[in-house]
């Protein structure tokens, strides 16, 4: 099951752990990692809710288009559920 997801193309202020170069990009879920404290709250010493964390695999073609060094190479990154939408 290659479930396709897109990283939300948001640019909120403050501490987030969804890298800007992945925002708006589509990938497939590589594995689910369970739940972890939300870093966007932890970073400010707030009580953090648990969020599902997923490993998402992106192709270099998706990330860099024509300029990709090798289009079929991949980048895997851990993205929190609230940053993902169905693609």
């Amino acid at each position, binding site marked *: 099951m290659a479930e396709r997801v897109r990283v939300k193309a948001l640019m909120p202020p403050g501490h987030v*752990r969804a890298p800007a170069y992945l925002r708006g990009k589509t990938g497939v879920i590589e594995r689910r990692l369970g739940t*972890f404290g939300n870093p966007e709250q932890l970073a400010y010493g707030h009580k953090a809710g648990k969020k599902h964390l997923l490993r998402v695999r992106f192709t270099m073609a998706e990330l860099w288009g024509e300029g990709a060094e090798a289009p079929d190479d991949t*980048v*895997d*990154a851990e993205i929190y559920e609230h940053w993902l939408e169905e693609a």
Partner: protein
Amino acid sequence: MPHDHHDHLSPSGHPFRPDNDSPLTYWQQMEIAVRELLIEKGVMTPAEIAAQIDAMDARNPANGAAVVARAWVDLDFKARLLADAAAASREMGFDIGPLNLIAVENTERVHNLIVCTLCSCYPRNLLGLPPDWYKTREYRSRAVREPRTVLREFGVELSDDMQVRVHDSTADMRYIVLPARPAGTADLTEAQLAELVTRDSMIGTGLPRNAL
């Protein structure tokens, strides 16, 4: 770019090193202030802080090398390592604290490379402190943009039919590469195999040493 041994020598043969007696930065001062307050308020003792620093300094890439060598000689252990690298490391007796660790396997078709584009996340609790280049903006930005060029600069040449998988440590997991066992090592003991495993081979910027 990236090797950490490109020191320029002075005419007298000593490596050049800039003075580091500039004023403390804001965050260095903040660290000292918080540490002193924690001691003053009895939250922790200087001995506990020193012990924690010693424990981190005692961690080094040899720990990871032992894990890799075990995976090379014991296929059941390798399966457990790939399923849960933290549990497998603890099984070998390494005190890695709360580390969440994923091992990614290099094969004839796949080469893995670890980076943290957002900061400098690294499996410190197993391998100790990261190399300085790992924390540079240059490595962090280029590893996801042009990994093959970066690998070439590290001396790793990959054929076109190999896939590169970059792993960006963006959140709670840390990563270790399980390099492929070098050819011609069938007769080596587990301890001899561990000596072939370099720090860079577990980051993906290097390969294990060849057996002599």
